[in-house]
């Protein structure tokens, strides 16, 4: 099995990250923003895994598990917020939440 070069992994990770980031910025629906965040987190995960295998270290996989649990927790909180938002505003438009406007 020929090893995938690290640069390819990193390119994939940055493409995924960019897609997620653009999703966060352009999407109005909060659900999709959360999903885009998941994409970004997974992009980081891919980068960790790739780096871990490139240097033959277990740290990369440890970090990925950490990111995975963090993402699970974040989704739990995020979805709870989402339900509250739906109840209060009858909508998931993130731009409605602009009470901190100066």
């Amino acid at each position, binding site marked *: 099995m020929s090893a995938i070069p690290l640069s390819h992994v990193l390119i994939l990770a940055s493409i995924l990250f960019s897609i997620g*980031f653009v999703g*966060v*910025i*352009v*999407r*109005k629906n909060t659900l999709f*923003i959360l999903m885009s965040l998941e994409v970004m987190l997974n992009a980081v995960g891919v980068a960790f895994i790739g780096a871990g295998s490139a240097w033959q270290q277990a740290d990369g996989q440890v970090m990925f598990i950490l990111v995975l649990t963090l993402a699970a927790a974040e989704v739990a909180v995020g979805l709870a917020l989402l339900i509250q938002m739906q109840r209060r505003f009858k909508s998931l438009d*993130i*731009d409605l*939440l*602009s*009470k*901190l*406007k*100066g």
Partner: protein
Amino acid sequence: MMIPSATENVLALLPLHPLISFLLLITFGKRLSWHMAATLSIGAMVLSTVSSFIVINQLSLQSPVLSVDLWNWFELNLTNSSSAKINISFYLDGLSAVMISVVTGIGLLIHIFAAAYMKDDENFTRFMAYMNLFIVAMLILVLADNLVLLYLGWEGVGLCSFLLIGFWYQERANVLAARKAFIVTRVGDTAMAIGLFMLFKELGQLNINDLNESASTLWVVGDEAPYWIALLLLGGAVGKSAQLPLQTWLPDAMAGPTPVSALIHAATMVTAGVYLIARMNGIFLLAPEVMNYVAWLGASTLLLAGVAALAQNDIKRVLAYSTMSQIGYMMLSLGAGAFSAGVFHLMTHAFFKALLFLTAGAIILALHHQQNLFKMGGLLKRLPFETVLFAIGLVCLMALPGSSGFFSKEAIIAQLWSSNTAGPLLWYCAIFGALLTSIYSCRLFFLAFMGERRFDHELQPSSSRLLKLSLIALAVLSLIGGIFANTIEQSLSGVFPSVQSLNMNEPNWLHSVAIATPFVGIVFSWFYFSTYRNSNHGNLNNAAFQDKPTPLVMFCRQGLGFDQLYDLLLVKPYCYLARLNRKDIFDQLIMFSAWYVCICHDVFKSSQTGKLRWYAAAIGLATALLLISLGIESFSLEAS
């Protein structure tokens, strides 16, 4: 340190009695009953009067001066490291003896009158407290041995005058009059303060006796420094004594209660200017031009006020203008160098003008606060007691032979003709003023007391014994005031230098003309004002009693247009400028920094959109920028 003698203690405590009374009255206020408040304030005045007579009795030809140093107030440092001590110390000589006897004696009688007059006022204690405070300030003014202490008393009487004119402060007119009096006298006081600064700069001290002495050794007659200093001091005197051109506040000051008009605006405070000039005679004698100005100011004020008094319809305003004109006589006399005659007229004027004002107060009280002369008439039959007293006052005012006013006024007029700084022209002014005095006095008497009654209400003469007691005492003083002439002359001879007079040949008809003038005025007005005198039911609707003044009379009634002139020249432009500068230009400089902060605030505020996606984008962009710059840096490090 010398142990002060008993008399010195009495002198030192002289202003303390009314001060204690003032503090008690103002502290306990309305909790004191009328009896307690009246006893307290009058008792303090009795103590002051008794002690002033004790100290005056101690003055003799051997020791014509009594002084007491209380404590050191502060020290004034000159640039050349010498310093002048300003002490709280009292100095009693012939001049201040006359003044304290007038202030305490007349003050006592007016306090007694006021206790009866103001009995029903709900702020009686406040009134008596202010009156006592006034006596304190006036005593400090006349007893001060240096000009700073004198200035303290000077401002103190100004303050009390303000407080008492505006005593019934719910009335807008009273408050305006009080404010006017305060501001107009402030103009003079500023001039006087500048005069004091100049004196201190030139002579390095402010002790009155030292000043008069060192002035005569340092300067010669006609020097520039005493000219300016005397002119500035004259400014202060003019403001306080309501002389031209700062006379406009006095008629309006009649808005205050009548005892106030009698005490402050006739007998004592307005004569403070005369006292100041007499006190600083050493400076004034070095500036003959200023003495000449003083004489001319006095003469023009006495004529102007006499003309204005002819047109008044308010009994108190007639008396106010008459006060102005009598003070004009005092100024004229000071300007002519006849200091002791001026001070003597100050004293007799205090007697009879206090009598006139208080009697007018009693009449006004009986007429339910009616002050309009055209609404009086026929009081001769209805208020005989007051009529007799008022007639006594008027006789003194007109200076008919035998009355106290005769002795003092004739003394002034006699010295005018051959004085260095006055002259025949001013003598004619004084004679014409005397003629005017007798004419307006007769007009006042005919309108108020003779003819038929023109008021609707029933009379309510006051039966208060206190009121009558003080009136009778003042009437006696006014009648016999002339007997003090020699005493005063003697006690003042040590204070004032004798002034050289020109050896002009005085025509021998001078005295007879001076004595005859008031009688001419009486005869003239007996015929000229015969309608006022003979009014009956038939001619009450006559035009003479309708008080519809012609423009000329109106012009005179309003004080010959000075109020309008000042309004036009000073008040209106000032108000215009104030309105123009409503958004204060200096304020704008300060507001610029506030504006700058606001701009910054707006800029930063606009970055806080509250939109989550914008924040995310900003974070991403910033991170990208950071990474790029880090990359460039590490690249350039590697390259080097």
